[in-house]
């Protein structure tokens, strides 16, 4: 029986995998996410981490966790299915975009050019995984009361809400107008801004059950390359020919 205290955390291994991948050329990397459904406990920490990392406003979500209940008493079970963007190799959202605002970058991640997007939402309708949401420009502090004194009220909280996020390595402030990404389709991008800084995606580092695993599938020594070769690895809606880069371990 392996000594669990002696076995390094998979985060350590994934961090090492990431460092090796970052030494390669962009086009030689193939980012892949593996979600081990047997380990997911449905804590939603990944969802919250993603919201915090990308400063997602109300109504925008990149990575919900779907909860399903099966069977009847006494044989009942629940399944938790995190659903990031599948980063399809053949993404249905890309060819429909009328202005080239969404495309697959050289690392195989489907990205958004917020300044190019006209907000037609065609890409949202085209995604078979509902992985895109529209930014309606809402804030968590809207319609909340002003408070003076020691209570942190709207004016204080709003400072945080208006502060920039750093998706795609660009500061996107919410200054209260209609500036992008307000009025745009938004989606998970595997935290490219973190990867470029040598950090794993926020959902991966936050996962308490180590159910979210990430790495370069082109590296045969990486954890994800090992996992996606297993017979219990599957992908959502494979019949659509989208070839997702997100795998589920059943």
């Amino acid at each position, binding site marked *: 029986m392996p000594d669990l205290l002696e076995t390094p955390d998979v985060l350590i291994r994934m961090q090492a995998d990431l460092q090796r991948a970052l030494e390669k050329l962009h086009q030689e990397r193939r980012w892949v996410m593996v979600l081990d459904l047997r380990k997911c406990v449905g804590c939603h920490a990944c969802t919250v981490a993603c919201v915090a990392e990308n400063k997602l406003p109300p109504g*925008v*979500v990149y990575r919900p966790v779907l909860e399903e209940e099966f069977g009847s008493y006494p044989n009942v079970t629940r399944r938790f299915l995190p659903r990031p963007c599948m980063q399809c190799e053949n993404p249905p959202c890309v060819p429909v975009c009328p202005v080239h605002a969404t495309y697959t970058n050289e690392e195989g991640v489907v990205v958004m050019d917020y300044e190019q997007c006209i907000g037609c939402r065609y890409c949202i*309708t085209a995604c078979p995984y*509902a992985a895109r949401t*529209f930014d309606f420009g809402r804030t968590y502090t809207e319609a909340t009361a002003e408070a003076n004194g020691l209570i942190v009220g709207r004016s204080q909280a709003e400072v945080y809400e208006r502060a920039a996020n750093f998706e795609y390595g660009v500061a996107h402030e919410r200054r209260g107008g209609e500036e992008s990404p307000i009025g745009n389709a938004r989606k998970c991008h595997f935290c490219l801004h973190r990867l470029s800084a040598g950090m794993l995606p926020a959902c991966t580092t936050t996962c308490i059950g180590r159910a979210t695993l990430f790495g370069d599938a082109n590296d045969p020594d990486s954890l994800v390359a090992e996992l996606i070769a297993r017979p219990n690895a599957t992908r959502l809606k494979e019949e659509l020919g989208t070839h997702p880069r997100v795998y589920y371990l059943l």
Partner: protein
Amino acid sequence: MTLKRLAYVVCLLALAAGAWGLYDRLTYGHQNAAYGSYVVWGLWVAMYLFFAGIAAGSFMLATLDLLFHVPVMRGTGRLALWVALVSLAAAMLSIWLDLGHMERVWKLYLQGAPGSVMAQMVWGYSVFGLLSLVCLILAVARPDGILLRILMIIGLPISLFISGAVGALLGVEASRLFWHVGLLPVQFPVFSVASGVAALLVAIGLFGPRQDPRRAEQLRLLGLATIVLAVVKLYFLWADFSQSTYGNVPQNVDAVNAVLYGPYWWAFWILQLLLGSIIPIIVLLPARLGRSGLVAGAMGVLVLVGFAAARANIVFPALTVPELEALTTAFTGPHLTFDYYPSPMEWAVTAGIAGAAILGFLIGQDWLPLRSKEVA
């Protein structure tokens, strides 16, 4: 009060509502819209399909007079072109207001993606609009000129293309089985002709010159066309829904059920089927009624109401079916719902656009030389 005056008053009221809606839209963006990230397209997209269909269909009908010189349709060409232009303007306004970034619409022209059906459609509509305008000018200035005929010949396939492209816009989406029907781009031109015929029924029946000796026969012909097209339309519906139901693919069946028995059941059974198809078929069948301006015009209005509901019934139900079963409860927040009913702001904007379109039509009819000399 004459019918036309009543129409003017209704249009002005609709414009007032539209002004409030427009203020809300421009001040608060999309925040007060009921569509969201799941039901992504709402009333404005449905109305875009509706008005765009009338525009393409009206142009096709204009060719009967200006290109093919069908005797009974003589004198209707300019009117049909004007209907096409005001409908197209309403369609473009409707879809423009739906954009998240209206100010970036120029990108569609200068940085557009040729492979995107939406881009192709926008380019097609732009060419179509310019062509219709030039055709109308020529139809007034040089009705017998060769240039008008050439442009009408060019315009006919373009009008077919743009109406088919609307079907293709939805049809290419394999993720929505309800839309992913190969025949959708074929059906839409038929819908366009049918809605163009209905619009002309209204234009000639309710507001056309009563002294025109051909008016009764024109209405009769358009009425019969309405009946035939309504039957074809019903057949399309039956084919679509029965195949979906027999096929028994859950996502498809759910969408069909949403149309038939869901929250929009009344829009299908009452507006689309009863008012938009069955009553017009019954009323327009007898020749006496079919030749009556008031009756034929009223039936045209009903058919158009049915078409508006039909467009909504194509757009909304497909989007109300979750792509993944548990998505409905996975994450909550504003605009994350699979239920959709247009918000007051959306209704107001649509009312304003419809009012502006009808007002444009009436003003054109009163002030532009849309009638041929012998009729005028």
